[in-house]
């Protein structure tokens, strides 16, 4: 047993760090640090920088333009990126549909989609959830009816993250109504410019436009855009959900958030003392840090197992549960640290170029918005309740 990373891994860490120091633009770094909402072009700029370095797809095989990094390398890369306040890489293309395409796609699909995905030319979004099917995803209703070489799509998707930026959407659609829910689903790639698609914003409680409803009215999609076989989409979807969970603990990001919380609490006056010196507040921070440490080592154990070839099973659900709890604990404490300055909420004035500055301390920027948005992480991607059901069944056999 040994906690140390190998010399090669340590050298890799140094390489990543040097790269970030040289290539990560200061304005992006600042936006991330100040919890500002990133614009489409912000994501793409960073994606292009990584793409140029060949580091855009750590987990992908080299033949498809990836780095074929070990789990430890991916972990190190993540840690360094978050420590440097790099923008996150959106998962929809790189982690979700990309691996589905290179695993189950036809050669022509791989050739067309993968390079465009990596370069950022194609922005992908995910069409899974529907108004009637939240936790019960397999009950989805969006219908795809065969018409010659096309499917005609009618239905609605919801919670579609950043669909308003997207060029393509990967969708689960119903191609058979009979039989078990799971056995009548197909997996389609749909160009967002296709006539009949309407994207409508869904404003969340932070007043941000992160997600959308996507309506399909007689949308014609070539059968050639189907992944794999008809009615076997559930298999690909499950494969995708498995990939989604790798790195789900967000240890590096949580560490960064916690570090910022401690800095803030050290700078926060609390009637003569520093807030961080308050026995109860510092205890809550310590509790959270202990929980994050436990999560970190749970994550490393699973990583080490993956390194040796065991894929994460129900344990990934544990990482998702704990990671989301830690994040929410940190954002709650960060709001709490602000005291009365958690109240001001001026999203409306934050147009670029204005001389807007946060009410209260500089560190207050974006804190409440982030906290409110982060309420979603115990709901999206399989709610905490669903994760516990999975562990109860898969790990405990109950």
């Amino acid at each position, binding site marked *: 047993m040994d906690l140390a990373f190998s010399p090669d891994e340590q050298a890799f860490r140094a390489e990543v760090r040097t790269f970030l120091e040289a290539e990560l633009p200061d304005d992006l770094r600042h936006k991330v640090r100040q919890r500002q909402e990133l614009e489409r072009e912000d994501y793409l700029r960073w994606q292009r920088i990584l793409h140029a370095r060949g580091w855009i797809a750590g987990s992908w095989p080299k033949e498809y333009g990836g780095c074929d990094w070990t789990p430890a390398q991916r972990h190190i890369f993540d840690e360094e990126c978050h420590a440097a306040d790099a923008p996150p890489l959106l998962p929809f293309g790189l982690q979700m549909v990309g691996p589905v395409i290179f695993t189950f796609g036809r050669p022509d699909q791989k050739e067309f989609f993968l390079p465009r995905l990596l370069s950022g030319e194609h922005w992908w979004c995910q069409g899974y959830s529907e108004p009637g099917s939240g936790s019960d995803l397999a009950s989805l209703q969006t219908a795809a009816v065969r018409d010659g070489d096309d499917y005609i799509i009618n239905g609605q998707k919801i*919670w579609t993250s950043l669909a308003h930026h997207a060029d393509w959407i990967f969708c689960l659609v119903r191609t058979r109504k009979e039989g078990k829910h799971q056995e009548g689903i197909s997996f389609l790639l749909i160009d967002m410019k296709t006539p009949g698609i309407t994207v409508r914003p869904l404003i969340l*409680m932070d007043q941000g436009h992160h997600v959308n409803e996507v309506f399909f009215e007689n949308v014609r999609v070539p059968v050639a855009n189907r992944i794999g076989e008809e009615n076997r989409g559930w298999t690909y979807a499950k494969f995708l959900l498995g990939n989604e969970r790798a790195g789900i603990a967000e240890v590096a990001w949580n560490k960064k958030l916690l570090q910022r919380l401690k800095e803030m609490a050290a700078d926060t006056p609390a*009637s003569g003392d520093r807030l961080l010196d308050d026995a109860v507040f510092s205890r809550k921070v310590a509790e959270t840090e202990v929980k994050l440490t436990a999560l970190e080592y749970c994550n490393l154990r699973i990583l080490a197992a993956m390194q040796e070839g065991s894929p994460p099973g129900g344990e990934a659900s544990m990482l998702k549960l704990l990671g989301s709890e830690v994040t929410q604990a940190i954002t709650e404490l960060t*709001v709490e640290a602000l005291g*009365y300055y958690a109240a*001001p909420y001026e999203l409306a004035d934050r147009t670029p170029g204005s001389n807007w500055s946060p009410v209260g301390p500089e560190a207050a920027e974006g804190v409440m918005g982030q906290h409110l948005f982060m309420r979603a992480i115990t*709901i999206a991607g399989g709610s*905490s309740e669903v994760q516990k059901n999975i562990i109860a069944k898969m790990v405990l056999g109950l």
Partner: protein
Amino acid sequence: MDFNLSEEQQLLKDSVDRFVLDDYDFEKRRKTSNSDDGFSRDNWKTFAELGWLAVGLPEEYGGFGGPVETMIVMEAIGRGLVTEPYLPTVVLGAGLVAEAGTDAQKEAILGAVAEGSCMLAFGYAEPTSRFNLADVSTTAEKKGDGYVLNGHKSVVYGAAAADKIIVSARTSGGVRDKDGISLFIIDNNCKGLTRRDYPTADGLRASEVEMENVEVGADALLGTEGAALPVIEKVVDQGIAALCAEAVGCMEMLKDETNEYLKTRKQFGVPIGKFQVLQHRMVDCFIELEQSRSMTYMVTLKLDEDEKERRKAASSAKAQIGKGGVFIGAQSVQMHGGMGMTDELKISHYYKRLMQIDTMFGNRDWHLKQFAALTQ
């Protein structure tokens, strides 16, 4: 021992409940909250006509009722997520004047509050004070008959709409001394006062109020010079009781809405309320609500007891309400799933209000500390 409302109290309750039900549906509330003022002056007029702005004021100035009546109004305000600045004007502002004002001040202000022609706000917090009411850096220096004020008051709810702002300022002593704090009534448009107004996360309006050589006359002093802290503490405790009632209104609405959602939303072929984990979670919400309601009654009925009992009551009630409110809020969002996250549904708005309520007048940590000190 009796937890029933009197006949008059029941009539008041019927009246405020009817208003919230008939005239304050959520879409109207959204428009009001998004308007420039953040509330409706028409509604304020209605409040005056129906007598609600006189609740808790002394009878000789047209007031009626006491803590129980305030509780009744505030609970309805909570159910409706009412944005009109009732707490700053009637409970805090008029409360301070009623508690400490001269006859002339009461005469000038309380009647005007009751008839809706005067709105008030109370600035007690400062950037470095956190929740300590005695931590006052704002200074008021004697100049002739009057005073010159300098300082920064933080997050003053209702300041933009207020005709007069009452602020705490230090006339003597060190920054956190209990003695030496005084209250002043300042015209909102007076020279040297600047405001930065902003919406708050819970859809209300607050302001940073900065005073640079604000000159006021002797008649601006509210109460005895240097002896304001006990007055502030008493009125803030009244504010806490009122806020607890508002929180109970919010929690009850969330409990009802979420319970209904559990009965109607189906997943895996059954209403999600059939899942035992959600049943028990909903029970936890119900119990938090019942505890919060009990504590609200308790603090409301103990506002006139001696200082120690009153402060114990206020701190324990606030600690419970802060916890219970945030719990019910967060769980209501969680149990509504994605829909709970949206701006469209009312759920998240109640959650946001309950979060602010936990912070207002000091959060759960603060009040547990006060309570521990009072009960050792």
